[in-house]
């Protein structure tokens, strides 16, 4: 090739442009010079065996992990060193691999907090949060969107694992994100719950860009427009799922391994 990948122009129209992300832990390279690009309201799935660097990659995208090298551009702006809590405000939302919600609060309060985070500061000390009707109404709408409206007043710790996932997605949607990062949303779920989340993701597909980290192959092929395969921190293939899946190196590294 005539010139290195680093010289490629930053794609102005792209939602997310990841350029050469590298993160080393001691002698282990968790992500190794990763490039990829997301444009339009597509679902990009990232798959890879355990230890492929998926979680490290997500961590760098959300700002929890600082990359050693490389940069991240969001809508043409560099965000490599932007603080975690600020990324939510520019339009990047996420769900966690291990469900992360406010177990001590009710389902509605969970959603309301996520809405509240995007309606100015919260240094309001005296007015009951319950009476902030615009916030509460948006929260109820969110719960309706993910099918949890009838659970609104239950403590979050009393609903099922699948419902926790639904709630997490509702909270991620609260900011009307441009980019939604879903870190294994199906982890630990039964077939019925998995179907429910798949339907939910289908319903939001096309309204925002989604990066889906997932182990469940059926889900990936049902939802993804693009498939990126990560092995030992490197992107070994990226493209249309049906084509990527048939590549011999992908079969060898990941799908074949799993079939055995």
């Amino acid at each position, binding site marked *: 090739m005539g010139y290195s990948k680093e010289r490629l122009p930053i794609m102005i129209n792209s939602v997310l442009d990841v350029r050469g992300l590298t993160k080393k832990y001691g002698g282990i390279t968790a992500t190794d010079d990763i490039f990829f690009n997301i444009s339009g309201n597509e679902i990009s799935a990232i798959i890879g065996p355990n230890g492929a660097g998926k979680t490290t990659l997500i961590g760098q995208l959300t700002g929890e992990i600082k990359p050693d090298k490389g940069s991240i551009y969001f809508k043409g702006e560099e965000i490599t060193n932007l603080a975690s809590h600020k990324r939510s405000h520019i339009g990047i939302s996420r769900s966690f691999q291990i469900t*992360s919600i406010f177990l001590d*609060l009710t389902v509605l309060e969970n959603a309301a907090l996520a809405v509240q985070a995007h309606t100015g500061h*919260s240094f309001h000390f005296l007015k009951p949060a319950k009476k902030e009707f615009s916030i509460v109404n948006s929260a109820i709408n969110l719960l309706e969107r993910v099918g949890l409206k009838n659970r609104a007043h239950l403590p979050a710790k009393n609903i099922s694992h699948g419902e926790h996932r639904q709630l997490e997605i509702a909270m991620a949607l609260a900011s009307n994100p441009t980019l939604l990062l879903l870190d294994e949303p199906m982890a630990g779920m039964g077939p019925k719950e998995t179907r429910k989340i798949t339907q939910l993701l289908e319903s939001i597909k096309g309204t925002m860009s989604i990066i889906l980290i997932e182990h469940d192959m059926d889900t990936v092929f049902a939802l993804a427009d693009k498939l990126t395969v990560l092995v030992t921190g490197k992107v070994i293939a990226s493209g249309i799922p049906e084509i990527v899946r048939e590549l011999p190196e992908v079969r060898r590294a990941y799908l074949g391994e799993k079939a055995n």
Partner: protein
Amino acid sequence: MPIIAPLIGEPYWIDVFTRVMIWAIAAISLDLILGYGGMVSFGHSMFLGIGGYTIGILAHYDIINGFIQWPVGLLLSAFTALIIGALSIRTKGVYFIMITLAFGQMIYFLGVSAEEFGSDDGLNIYNRSEFNVGKWSLDLDNSLVFYYSVFTLLVAILWLVHRIVNSRFGMIIRGIKSNENRIIAIGINPFRYKLVCFTISGTICGLAGILMANAEKFISPDMMHWTKSGELIFMVVLGGIGTVFGPLNGAMVFLFLSEILSNITHNWHLIFGPFLVFVVIFARRGIDGLFQRKTTDND
């Protein structure tokens, strides 16, 4: 209960109830950061000291006007809480406990080394704060007037804390305690909210210190000894962490029990200690939890 005390008419009980209510204000303030915000401060009695010493020192220089004393005490408490909070809140868990304990000890030894103000022996206050507006005046030296003033403030603080914990601000604070990473993920910087919460809490505890100095007409470093911070934590745990009325109940039970037991035997700690252990093991959510269990079972 607070209404009953004056009816008994015994000055002794009026004093006891006054003290209970003052400790309750301090415990409520601690519960705001400990129970709602998840910040276990082991130096909270420093704010009792700051409030109390402000009254004592100003009185020492013959400034007994409450309109000067009290705002100065509250502002100093708020300011100290802001500085110490800003330095402590960056740590979590055990480190937060240790750093607040360390700051508490610093303030304590500041009191011990203040020879002008009596060092270890403390300082007598000859006049309670004076509130005079024209002809009208509030005679805090009358123990019943003082009692009702403290009672009014207690009710006001209960109302205030109740409003705060249910406000948007309160939701963020409870969210931080429940899951700080989630709070960051939804786009909130927890530090500012924790710091404001810590400052509000320190200020309210400073108020308790102001009242305590007036009640005892005496201040000494003992009021900010680290064991006092421990007692405050016990009151909160005893009453029920993260409840508005819990610390009030906790302060009442704690002080009455220690009062009664110390009348029975000199070694009252031998009974009191196991009792606290018992509460922590069998009544996880304190007194409040004992009453609430029945109502939640019916759901």
